[in-house]
């Protein structure tokens, strides 16, 4: 069963659009949350203006990681030269699936990173003396929240680079199985990252908030944040395992 190269190109462009389109939604929302927190903080504590502004800028730059990943995947889909005619249905499915995985996969993590940064800005306004430590904690919390987006990036890169071309003599049933397995892998890791990303973002946001209220307990709060985030991460790891199995073991 042949597939001409135009259809593979259609799949690649569709995947690129889905990836960066979905990925931009919550990146924007997250940056807005951080800027909102910063504005509120400046209103409450105008003397700490410089510190709040710095925290806000750094938080916004760090919260855009998932959006940048989505952009990398869409650029690779457009210019990477994957549209070879011998790829067949397999190639079309992997290209579409890579876009879906990274697009949906950046929804949760950016939202979580944005919430965490917003709380950190308010917290710096409440306790400017501990601003540096709160900023470090914010960066760690955002990094934890974006771990699941990195899983999505990993699956997208694997789908792009390490899947085989379609063999010549192969039955339609086998093609269907493999194609839908690729799409299923993209959906699994894509939806699987939304929950953990948003949840860990909530943990990090609460930790930042409490660090501003009770700065004496900061090491204990940080340890609890790490423990809770590591356990919330487990469902994202299950999704990663299922996606691996769907790509390589079917």
């Amino acid at each position: 069963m042949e597939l001409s190269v135009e259809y593979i190109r259609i799949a690649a462009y569709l995947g690129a659009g889905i990836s960066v389109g979905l990925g931009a939604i919550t990146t924007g929302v997250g940056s807005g949350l951080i800027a909102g927190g910063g504005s509120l903080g400046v209103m409450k504590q105008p003397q700490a203006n410089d510190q709040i502004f710095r925290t806000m800028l750094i938080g916004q730059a760090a919260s855009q990681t998932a959006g940048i990943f989505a952009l990398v995947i869409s650029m690779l889909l457009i210019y990477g030269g994957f549209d070879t005619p011998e790829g067949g249905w397999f190639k079309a499915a992997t290209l579409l699936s890579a876009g879906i995985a990274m697009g949906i996969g950046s929804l949760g993590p950016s939202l979580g990173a944005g919430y965490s940064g917003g709380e950190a800005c308010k917290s710096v306004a409440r306790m400017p003396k501990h601003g540096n430590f709160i900023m470090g904690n914010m960066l760690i919390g955002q990094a934890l929240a974006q771990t699941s987006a990195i899983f999505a990036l990993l699956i997208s890169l694997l789908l792009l680079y390490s899947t085989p071309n379609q063999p010549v003599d192969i039955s339609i049933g086998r093609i269907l199985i493999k194609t839908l397995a690729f799409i299923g892998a993209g959906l699994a890791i894509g939806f699987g990252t939304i929950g953990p990303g948003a949840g860990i973002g909530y943990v990090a946001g609460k930790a930042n908030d409490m660090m501003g209220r009770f700065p004496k307990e900061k090491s204990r709060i940080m340890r609890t944040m790490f423990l809770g985030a590591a356990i919330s991460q487990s469902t994202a790891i299950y999704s990663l395992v299922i996606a691996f199995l769907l790509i390589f073991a079917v």
Partner: protein
Amino acid sequence: MDNITLAQGIVKAAALLGAGMCMGMGALGPGVGEGFVAGKACEGIARSPENASLITRTMLVGQAVSESTGIYSLVIALLLIFST
């Protein structure tokens, strides 16, 4: 290649797509829920640090229970991949 009919192929393909969607959607709820638990635990530990070990234990038990739906999804996905 092995010879499987179109019908068999459709069934297996639907099972695989279902496995992917099952694990994806199934990870949504537990992730948010466990994050909420851990966030509240952070708040509690900050407010009353003398009860830290108690709060941590409650947090771990609560997360383990919320995790169970995620594990159900994992089991169903593995069944769909390997036993159809």
